[in-house]
């Protein structure tokens, strides 16, 4: 029952958030700032994680490929599939749920407990719209690029590891990358990540928006934001994957 109560509250908050902004120029400025905070600020961590995971995936697959019956292109092919289908859209989003989710919830939660949200409401500004919509939009605009960057970087990382440590030849690896390539998979990954970005930004904003009390409660709400957006992300990942690929 508790769940339905909170879910209803979440939907109502979203309904308030998806209204026309009061001042469009100001709104665009906010979106740009949020793209900076949500998107640009995540590029470093995403690149670092991607390059390492790409390399590790290649080493592990290579280790399991001692059997001469397995064709040489499997290495590049396997890496491409894991990266495009799962690592870049889902695992990267999961990592960003931690980074972005906690920062959104603590920022909005602090504004709640220091009455900054009340100050907006008093002025007659729709605080849900003003605070949440720019973050959701910025997430939706940023995530496709983050995911593509992650794909490129992790495949590059895998390639470098393969060639540097003689796990595969450059030619075999690249022919594996091209083997049975279905561009739809990239579209699928981007779509999935875009949906995840919506979950992360909106669920975290929800937890911040309804924070109450003081600094400790803001901390709790930011933990909840990360936990619930991660669970929502994993659940919807299962459902989407089953529906589209299953």
């Amino acid at each position, binding site marked *: 029952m508790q769940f339905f109560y909170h879910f209803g509250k979440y939907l109502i908050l979203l309904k308030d958030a998806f209204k026309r902004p009061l001042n469009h120029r100001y709104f665009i400025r906010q979106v740009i700032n949020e793209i900076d905070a949500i998107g640009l600020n995540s590029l470093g961590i995403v690149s670092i994680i991607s390059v390492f995971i790409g390399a590790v995936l290649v080493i592990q697959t290579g280790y399991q490929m001692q059997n001469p019956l397995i064709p040489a292109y499997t290495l590049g092919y396997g890496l491409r599939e894991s990266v495009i289908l799962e690592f870049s859209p889902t695992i990267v989003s999961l990592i960003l749920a931690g980074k972005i989710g906690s920062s959104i919830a603590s920022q909005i939660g*602090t*504004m709640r407990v*220091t*009455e900054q949200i*009340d100050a907006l409401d*008093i*002025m007659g500004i729709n605080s849900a719209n003003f605070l949440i919509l720019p973050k959701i939009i910025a997430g939706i605009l940023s995530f496709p690029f983050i995911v593509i960057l992650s794909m490129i970087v992790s495949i590059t990382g895998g390639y470098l590891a393969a060639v540097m440590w003689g796990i595969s030849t450059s030619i075999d690896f690249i022919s594996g990358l091209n083997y049975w390539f279905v561009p739809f998979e990239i579209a699928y990954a981007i779509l999935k990540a875009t949906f995840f970005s919506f979950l992360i930004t909106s669920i975290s904003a929800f937890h911040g928006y309804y924070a109450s009390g003081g600094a400790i409660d803001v901390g709790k709400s930011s933990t909840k934001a990360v936990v619930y957006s991660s669970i929502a992300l994993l659940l919807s990942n299962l459902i989407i994957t089953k529906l589209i690929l299953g």
Partner: protein
Amino acid sequence: MIDVRNINKSFDDKHVLKDVSLVFEEGKQNLIIGQSGSGKTVLLKCLVGLFEPDNGSILYSGRDFVTMNKNARKEIRKEIGMLFQGSALFDSMTVMENVMFPLLMFSDLNAKEQIDRANFCIDRVGLTEAHNKLPSEISGGMQKRAAIARAISLNPKYLFCDEPNSGLDPKTGVKIDHLIEEITQEYNITTVINTHDMNSVIQHGDNINYIYEGEVWWQGNKSSFLGNDNPELLDFIYSTEILKRIKPKK
């Protein structure tokens, strides 16, 4: 003028405001006093629509805020300024941006006029030097001033202040009280102030309303205040040791 009639407000089974009726007058400092937890903040938040009262009416110059629709409320909101207990400045914005914010969102002024107006308000509260500082870079007293500048930027008819001098040293508190008094008189604002500061009460109480456990217990002004014979109010006034010692014996 704000006319509050028979307001009740409960949270779950906790009856916080009990049939509160009050009148707040123009150009005056209308005080709501009472000890912590008596319901002052809840009352103020009902007045400005952050809480919905369970029943009763709140008339802003005759217009009932409780029953009116969202759009009509928006019009009244433009006439309202509020000073929050913790200042509630937007912490990602400089003082100037904070004061500019309501102007950007609501005023019909052009860009230059907006800047002029913001500068005027900042100068008026004596913060000329702190223009480009962030709230975290200025003192509590200066934050209160900045919040006052933001609250008056749209020329409000009604100004609400929740414990304007709480958290400030006595001297700074007195200065903030004076600033609010000057602004109230200069612009003929209906100012409503929550406080439990006795000095504010006897210096600035044009219209004093004592709330005891959610009920209006006593009403008067600064000249009738100290001579009152209400036992709960006397108990509240003389609650500190220093005042108990100088309390007149009857």
